[in-house]
């Protein structure tokens, strides 16, 4: 088997047994990136020399018997995580020259575990988007193709570069961040597993902020077990994040082997949205049958405020974004465009540095927080957010996890769904509620569309019960037996 086609678990076993070296594994990935990235644009910045140096250090750790499950594992890092000495752009032109003088907690933990950084993965600008089209560094192409078509498809977003890199075998795994679905929807579009853990599980320190009450880091990989391995490395309390949870990190990998026998799985009526495609509905029914076959009990539930998730999100997230992005003013870091005076300099800098979607969201956020509109929009949205959390709390009195589709469709073409901003927003209809409630949720590949594109199912769990989410996801993964591979991948041509 090709080195780029291994899972993290397989690569870890081969490294530990000294069948392969970390340098060989990293070199194979550097070669894959050099061949495929010019086409797919999954990385904004590649770091082949840094990766080799880290791989050498990993080999030394392995030789010294000090290796862990992530030692020598080559990863893509979403370009939203600050990496000391390595340019970090958030896919925005406003941060084009930014070289962080510090490291995010999540990437520092991965480094300390001996993981290898292959480069900084492309994303929607400031993680605002569901298609990777808003990146200031060009869109990412999905390595998957429709049957008999070479049309370029989106990899989803915002963690679309992370998704494309892992799907195309340019990395064994990747970090992502998820504010309203930015790990789960691209995972679904590219045939990967990806988990947004409970809000507070992974430190937000050093992750460029979009919407602070929603942003959460998580892993994307080709198997549920690989996600579990990465999640253990990324999680844990951090005093530098005021919302970091003071909780022990459980053995996530062990949870993937748990049986789902006797687990109560909720099927929310409100996710059967009007106009749901027949193939998504069928896939969802298959997921129900797979879990039933493995001994889970299926229970119909209601999450009555589901339909308000997207409108709440499109008030709360822009409001927080308008505040967080106020820091980009051309004074302390990033790009500056000179003006007639200080205010003119701010306005010209922000006009030139931000793309259209980021400007729209800042302006919506500014409006809903402005005098006279705060109560009507922002406060109202926060109250409905409370009702959505209550929906989940009541549901979790009756069930252990919830099963839904991840996204309303398979990957779409670059340039589609661009008619107006709201059409694009509808991509996140199934993922946003879990983000607003702060509960963990995972997408797992479950099948192919009629056109041959991957489709995911979503498993939502209770606060800090990622273990059940991983167990149910692994059960779906086993039953689905998803083995399809994308058209464009290392070793395929």
């Amino acid at each position: 088997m090709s080195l780029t086609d291994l899972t993290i678990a397989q690569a870890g076993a081969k490294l530990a047994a000294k069948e392969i070296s970390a340098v060989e594994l990293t070199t194979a990935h550097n070669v894959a990136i050099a061949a495929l990235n010019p086409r797919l644009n999954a990385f904004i910045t590649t770091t082949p020399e840094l990766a080799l140096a880290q791989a050498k250090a990993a080999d030394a750790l392995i030789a010294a018997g000090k290796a862990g499950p992530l030692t020598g594992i080559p990863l893509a890092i979403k370009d939203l995580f600050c990496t000391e000495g390595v340019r970090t752009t958030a896919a925005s032109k406003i941060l084009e020259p930014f070289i962080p003088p510090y490291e995010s907690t999540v990437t520092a933990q991965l480094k300390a575990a001996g993981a290898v950084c292959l480069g900084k993965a492309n994303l929607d600008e400031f993680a605002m988007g569901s298609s990777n089209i808003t990146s200031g560094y060009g869109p990412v192409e999905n390595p998957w193709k429709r049957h008999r078509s070479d049309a370029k498809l989106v990899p989803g977003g915002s963690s679309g570069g992370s998704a494309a890199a892992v799907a195309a075998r340019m990395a064994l795994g990747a970090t992502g961040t998820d504010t309203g679905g930015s790990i789960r929807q691209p995972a679904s579009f590219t045939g990967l597993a990806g988990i947004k853990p409970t809000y507070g599980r992974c430190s937000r320190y050093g992750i460029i902020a979009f919407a602070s009450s929603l942003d959460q880091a998580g892993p994307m990989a080709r198997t549920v077990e690989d996600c579990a391995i990465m999640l253990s490395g990324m999680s844990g309390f951090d005093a530098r994040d005021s919302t970091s949870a003071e909780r022990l990190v459980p053995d996530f990998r062990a949870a993937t082997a748990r049986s789902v026998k006797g687990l109560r799985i909720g099927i929310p009526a409100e996710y059967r949205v009007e106009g749901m495609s027949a193939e998504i509905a069928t896939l969802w029914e298959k997921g129900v049958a797979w879990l039933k076959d493995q001994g889970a009990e299926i229970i119909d539930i209601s999450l009555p405020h589901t339909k308000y998730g997207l409108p709440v999100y499109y008030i709360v997230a822009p409001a927080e974004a308008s505040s967080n992005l106020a820091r980009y003013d051309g004074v302390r870091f990033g790009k500056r465009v000179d003006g007639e005076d200080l205010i003119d300099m701010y306005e010209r800098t922000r006009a030139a540095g931000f793309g259209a979607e980021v400007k729209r969201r800042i302006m919506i956020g500014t409006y809903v927080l402005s005098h006279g509109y705060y109560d009507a929009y922002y406060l109202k949205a926060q109250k409905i957010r409370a009702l959505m959390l209550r929906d989940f709390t009541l549901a979790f009195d009756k069930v252990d996890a919830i099963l839904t589709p991840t996204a309303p469709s398979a990957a779409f073409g670059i340039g589609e769904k661009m008619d107006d901003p709201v059409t694009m927003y509808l991509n996140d209809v199934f993922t946003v509620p879990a983000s607003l409630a702060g509960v963990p949720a995972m997408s797992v590949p479950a099948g192919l569309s009629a056109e041959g594109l991957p489709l995911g199912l979503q498993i939502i769990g209770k606060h800090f019960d990622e273990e059940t989410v991983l167990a149910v996801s692994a059960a779906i993964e086993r039953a689905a037996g998803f083995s399809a591979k994308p058209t464009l991948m290392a070793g395929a041509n």
Partner: protein
Amino acid sequence: MSLDTATVRRIAKLARIRVDEAEIATLQTELNAILGYVDQLNEVDVTGIEPLSGGAQMAMRLRPDICNDGEMPEKILANAPDRAGEFFAVPKVVE
């Protein structure tokens, strides 16, 4: 609620984003589409509901109010577009 062009200009000013006259009409349409979409929240009765501001199910932690970091002006200024000594430099504000 529908935004007129004067309000769009006012929001851009508050957001410190320079907007050309030619962009106003497009922005107005797009922002109104978003606000039109979120208007459905008016259907929901929120009487007596406390707002939920955060994702964390916990009280905020406190720490002693002491300085625990600093003494790194070069690191902090390394990304500055303009500097004067150990300060960020900006265009003159007062004559």
